[in-house]
């Protein structure tokens, strides 16, 4: 094995960031939040479409687990940009579940349906009232962890 080579590189971003002008971090944060708000409608439509497809897959019960995984990452990807913690946590749990199932080459639609129903409930609940759904989200995680124990994996640490 050859030795590691350690060297410095020019960072153009550093030069640009320090140029005169620009804006303060506070102003950039405010402007980004305004731009995000303008994108919220379309984004939540896309999440709604992904949830509808997941609901249909749960009825059909023939899709490969890869499809469930891809749709749950779609929800996580979009909701994650809006700091939607509950929806992200529920979607992450479904990603984990689908990933475990596909690794085992199995399909178990009952826990998937519970996850999709939970995500739909979160999506339909106004943001101000979502705190009340924390216990439900923890329940989704318990379901996914239960599958890990069946697998013989160590139990995940408490959040």
């Amino acid at each position, binding site marked *: 094995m050859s030795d590691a080579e350690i060297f410095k590189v020019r960072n153009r*971003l550093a030069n640009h960031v320090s*140029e005169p002008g620009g804006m303060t971090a506070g102003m950039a944060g405010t402007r980004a939040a305004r731009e995000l708000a303008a994108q919220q409608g379309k984004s939540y439509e896309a999440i709604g479409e992904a949830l509808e497809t997941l609901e249909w897959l749960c009825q059909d019960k023939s899709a490969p687990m890869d499809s469930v995984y891809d749709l749950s990452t779609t929800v996580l990807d979009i909701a994650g940009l809006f700091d939607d913690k509950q929806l*992200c946590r529920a979607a992450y749990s479904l990603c984990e579940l689908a990933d475990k199932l596909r690794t085992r080459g199995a399909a178990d639609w009952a826990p998937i349906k519970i996850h999709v129903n939970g995500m739909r409930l979160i999506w339909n609940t106004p943001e101000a009232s979502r705190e009340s759904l924390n216990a439900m989200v923890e329940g989704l995680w318990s379901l996914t962890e239960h599958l890990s124990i069946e697998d013989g994996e160590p139990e995940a640490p408490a959040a």
Partner: protein
Amino acid sequence: MSLHPDVRLNLARSNVLLIDDNEQALEVLASIFRGFGVHRQVKCGSAADAQAVLRSREIDLIVCDTVMPDMDGYAFVRWLRREGPEEARFAPVIMLTGHAARSTIESSRDCGANFIVSKPFTPEVLLQRIYWVAKDERSMVRSDSYVGPDRRFRNIGPPLGVKGRRKDDLSAHIGIAKDPNMDQDEIDNLLKPQRAVL
């Protein structure tokens, strides 16, 4: 810990490459960067498109999603660091992760990205990571098994403008001298042995 709201930064002339296969997520990401004042952004829906962009344009920052069909974000960064165009090979990369699939855990650790940001996140967190990447003074390492920023831990304190988590955290940045340099006589006097008075 977030970037102090008064810290000033200029991203107007930075060329930023955004990569995400999810069209809506890419739009949202682009809108966040517009908010940050980035005028020059290139959006790519796949790693293959991004590879083509890097061969033809100068890019200062790459922001890349991890889960993508065909070539995922980790494989893309691995390609960039090893086989990417010379000009872009060591461009700073921020990876955005949703779920870490079992099959990708090892590749995520060794891909060579500068920072990994987990979703969900706020624009403030992303801006802070951009600032950190810009101020990142780590050397690059090239070895058989890894190409990317030096991952060895060295405590250099929080970046300039960021308050540390501990009350006695100090940044390693010394800043510009406030007083004129000492002349040689003053330095000699400091070093001259003197009788101690007990």
